[in-house]
Structures are given as C-alpha cells and as structure tokens.
C-alpha cells in the first residue's frame, strides 16, 4: 500500500511534466492479465485494431484503485479499462469515468442492468459449486442448500473470504431464497446463513488461483469457485464436477477513465468490443461468457459449446445476476460485517 501511495505521489509530480506522447491512433487498454486477457486480445483487441486501423497497447490492472490513482493523480494512462461491475458502479458514483456515447456504442443485446451512462458490461464470470467426484461420485452437493448441509454431505469446504458479495449471494441461496428473490440481498439474513456453515469452512479463499489449488490438491472436497477456474480443473483432468445451477453471474465492465486523451477512438474501440460479432469470439478462447446476448445469434459459437457458456440464454435462467448497484451502496457495510463474522 505504501508503494501505491508513493506511485500516487510520483504520478502527481510527473503529471505536470508528462507530454501527451501517444499518437491519436494509439490507445491503451487495461485488463486482468493472464489467459483472460490473452483471450480478449484474440477476441476483441486484435480484430478491433485491424478494423479501425489503430494500435492497441495493453496493460494490466488491479481494479478500481488503479483507476482512482490515475484519475485523482491527474495521470491517466489508460483509454479503456476493465473492472468488476460493482467497481464500475462505485467508480461511477465517484465520477472517475467519461460518459459513454450510445450513438457510437450499440447497447442492444446487453442486459439493461449493465448499460449505464459511463460504464457498460463486457463479459460474465459465474460463481459455481464444485465438488470432487472421487469423494462423492456423482452424488455430490448440487445446490447451496446441499453445501450447507454438513450431515448429508460431510467433507471439507471452502468459500470465498475476499468476495463477500459472492459469498453472501450463495448464502442467501443456501437458506432457500429463490433465484429471482436473492436481490436485493437481505444482508443480515445472509450473514446468519454464513454463520450456520462458518464452523465447517476449512478455508476462506482470497484468489481464484487459491480456490483452484484447494480443490485440485484435495485440500477441500467442495468449494465455491469461478467457472473459468472450474473449467480449467476439469480440462486438466481433475476429478471434479460443477454446473451452472444456482450459479451467481457477476459481470465485468469496461470504462473510459476520466481524462483519457484518446476518448473518441476509445469510444469506437469499445463499441467494437461489445458488438455481437466480436463478443461471439470470446467464448472460443475462454470460459467467460459474452455480455451481449446477440453474440449467440451470430452463428460463430458452435452449438455444443453454447451449453458450456455461463451467459448463454439457457444457463442465464439457472443463475442469479449479481446486482452491481446494490453492492455499490452496501459493499462496505456488508464486507465489514462479513469480516467480523468469519473472524470470530
């Protein structure tokens, strides 16, 4: 953190002397790195660069802190950046982003909950229930109520300790809340639900890699996990099973940080990224589903692949869509309460 603050200071100092060096036909896009960003490069960035005749430089982000640092330090180096949808909602409230022009960006096909003045949905991740088939066979826990049922399904368990939003959503499902009634989350009710299972949680994971390692090495027999990680485990041949039933769909979004020097080109590029044609490329390379449902109508995605994509119309019906605006307003309070609970 101290390092961040130093960077903050440096950024501030440099801001006054930095020359806007980037040519008008070059933009910088930041995303999460790793296989996800590699997939985005093939699906979104390369085709867009070719179509618009621009150069797209890439960087990686740690999330909203980074954007806040650049915008408040008056040293914006990204023209487009990816964030979690609840981060977009929070950043929007703080005024960190440029307004989007929906005359340039075609929003049709994107869930209206993910279309806002200054941010737009780009892809989906799901939180799913994974269990080891070498422990349970095919009779493993199928719902969050099963996961909570420690008598019927004895075994070691892991849930996310860092993503309180996701754990509270599955806790609400565990106490029997129907999929369409989870939001707005009854936070105290969900916390009570977490309290019930708390004593049986062997690990609270704090990163996707950790969740994967816990399941892969048999440290736990069942866990909440991101579908991309779950898919990787399955592809690697780990004895695991998961489905999208009662999954929690969380969206990622893209924004143009306030003060971007290439706003207009960024807008055109962003319009390309969310277009059905490029959106349909994404699931060809990675398990994160497209945010634009029209992608499924392009015919680019093979039929047998569609059933494995978390945001396909079939799978969306089975899942809860995490509400970014609910968490914008309740994140801090809920997270502090959640931390109090799991640390008791």
């Amino acid at each position, binding site marked *: *953190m101290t390092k961040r*603050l130093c960077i903050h200071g440096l950024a501030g100092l440099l801001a006054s002397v930095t020359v806007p060096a980037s040519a008008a036909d070059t933009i910088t896009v930041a995303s999460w790195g790793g296989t996800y960003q590699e997939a985005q490069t093939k699906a979104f960035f390369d085709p867009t660069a070719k179509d618009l005749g621009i150069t797209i430089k890439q960087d990686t982000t740690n999330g909203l802190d980074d954007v806040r640092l650049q915008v408040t330090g008056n040293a914006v180096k990204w023209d487009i950046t990816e964030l979690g949808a609840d981060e977009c909602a929070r950043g929007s409230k703080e005024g960190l982003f440029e307004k989007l022009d929906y005359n340039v960006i075609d929003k049709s096909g994107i869930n209206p909950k993910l279309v806002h003045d200054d941010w737009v949905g780009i892809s989906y991740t799901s939180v799913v229930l994974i269990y080891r088939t070498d422990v349970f066979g095919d009779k493993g826990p199928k719902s969050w109520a099963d996961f909570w049922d420690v008598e019927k399904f004895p075994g070691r368990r892991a849930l996310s300790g*860092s993503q309180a939003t996701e754990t509270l959503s599955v806790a609400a499902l565990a106490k029997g809340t129907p999929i369409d009634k989870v939001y707005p989350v009854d936070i105290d009710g969900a916390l009570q639900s977490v309290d019930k299972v708390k004593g049986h949680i062997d690990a609270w994971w*704090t990163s996707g890699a950790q969740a994967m390692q816990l399941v892969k090495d*048999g440290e736990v027999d069942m866990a909440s996990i991101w579908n991309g990680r779950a898919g990787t485990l399955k592809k690697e041949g780990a004895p695991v099973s998961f489905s999208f039933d009662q999954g929690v769909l969380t969206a990622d979004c893209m924004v143009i940080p306030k003060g971007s020097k290439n706003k207009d080109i960024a807008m055109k590029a962003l319009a390309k990224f969310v277009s059905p044609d490029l959106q349909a490329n994404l699931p060809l390379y990675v398990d994160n589903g497209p945010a634009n449902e029209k992608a499924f109508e392009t015919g680019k995605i093979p039929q047998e692949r569609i059933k494995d994509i978390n945001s396909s119309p079939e799978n969306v019906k089975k899942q809860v869509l995490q509400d970014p605006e609910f968490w914008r307003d309740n994140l801090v309070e809920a*997270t502090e309460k959640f*931390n109090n609970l799991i640390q008791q």
Partner: protein
Amino acid sequence: MSVGSASLDHAGRPDGVLNADALRADARRQALGLLALLSPGLFLVFSIIIVPIGWLFWLSLFDETGQLSLANYARFFEQASYIKTFATTFKVAFVVTGACVLFGYPLAYMLSQLPRRAASICLIFVILPFWTSVLVRTYAWLVILQRKGLINNWLIDLGVIGQPLPLANNFAGVVIGMTHIMLPFLVLPLYASMKTIDVDCLRAGMNLGASPAATFRQIFFPLSLPGLASGVVIVFVLCLGFFVTPALMGGGKVIMWAMRMEQATSLYSNWGAGAALGVVLLAVTLALLGLFQWLLGARATGVWSRR
C-alpha cells in the same frame, strides 16, 4: 565539540581568546563541511521516508467525503474484527519469534562452535533460502503440509496416523511457514555475537571448576544475550508486517494487519482507510522498539539506533 570545550578552558587569557576564536571558526567550518557531506543522505531520507510517512499520516485523517475526520481510526474500535486482527497479528509474531529462538539458538550455537570452514558451509545453508522468493517457499510449504501433502502422506503410509494432521490453512501452517522465513534473521545476528565471545572466559570458568553446563549457563548464555535480543527484535518487528505467508497458509482464518491494509485500500474509496492501518502499525512498531530499547539497553536495538 571537544575542541570547543578545550578552548573554553583558556577563555580567560587574552592570547587564548584569539586562539579560541580561531578554533571555534575551524570547528564551525568542519561542522558545515560534514553537513554538506551528509546533505545528500539527509535529503534522501527526508524525501523517501519522512515525506511519504507524513503524507500517509495526513491521508489517514480524511474520510470518504474528503472531510477531516477520525473516522478511519474510530473504525478500529467500532468493528470487532480489527481488534481481533490486531490480536492475531501479535499472537503470530509472538509464537513465530518463540519458535525462531527455540530453533535458532541451538543452530547458532552449533555454528559458532564448528571449525571456521565447516561453519561457513553451514552458514550458506542458512542464507540460501534468502535467495528464493518468499512466495515460492510458501507454496512449497503448502505442498509439504497440506492434507494430501508430503508429510501427511508419509505419516499415513507409515501407519503413524489415521487421519491427516491439520498443518496447512490454519494457525499452525502460518507459524511453520513464517518461522522458516524468519529463522535466518535470528540466526545471523546471534551467530555474529556468539563468535565474539572470548573462549578464554569459558576456559577460565572451567579452570575454576565449573561443569560445561554451568559454564554455558553462567558465562556463554549471558554473553550471547545482546545478539539474541537484537535477533528477537528484528524477527518480531518483521512478523508484524507479514503478508504473503499468512495470506496463503492461513486459509483465510488467520488475518494479519497487512492483509487488512490490502483489503481496506480496495474496499474504501479513500486512501485514509488503509493509511490509518499503516499509521497504527508504524506507531505500534516504534513503541515496541522504544520498549525493547528501554528494557534491553541500546545494544539490543543497536541495529537501528547505532549512534
């Protein structure tokens, strides 16, 4: 300054006054010269330590709306989890320091007694882990300690235990991982101080009829205490700010102060929330160093405050 005080002795005599003035001017020139030599260092310390820490403190005084407030500090008392985290941090630091002393003292003693060549070879093994990333070492421990890890598999195969021992993703895992990383920080100062203990003192003790055990207890051990104390201080203070190992080995159940800082910076939209955590850790660490200095004398904390 000794030049100045010497010249004062002659202050009464007329020829001495002239002399004293010249000496004083010379001392002043020398002091200015030293200051000039020091100034790059001072500037560096000021600009990369004092200013950022001051800034950190300043940031911690603002709430989410940018108003001057103590909300960031009040939170520590309103939310039980912060006090719990604070207690956990000290508990971990305390236990790890204890474990380091338990393993490190005999190790340093052995090293100090070995012939020079053998000792340097063994020292390489103590220092070797320094060159490996903390992250890699922590993951290695995870592989060794987890439920289906090396140790549990061996013990089960040998029929020693029926159920795997809970060694990872809990307090024990954090302590094992951190002790391994911290051990050299205790061994090195301790070894250095043990090497300076005059063997003649021990011989004299035994000449006077003390048993080897009594010689160790009454002569060697007390003489090694300053080195032990500085090792303990280094280990304890470093433990307070640990992040990687508890984050990976604690299974989310052992939350230390540095992990809360990371959490606070992403959870709150103002830097103050995380900054306040930093200020508290810094203040507590300084207070502890002060306490150690007061309890053990300047030699123990000499690593930081050698004057």
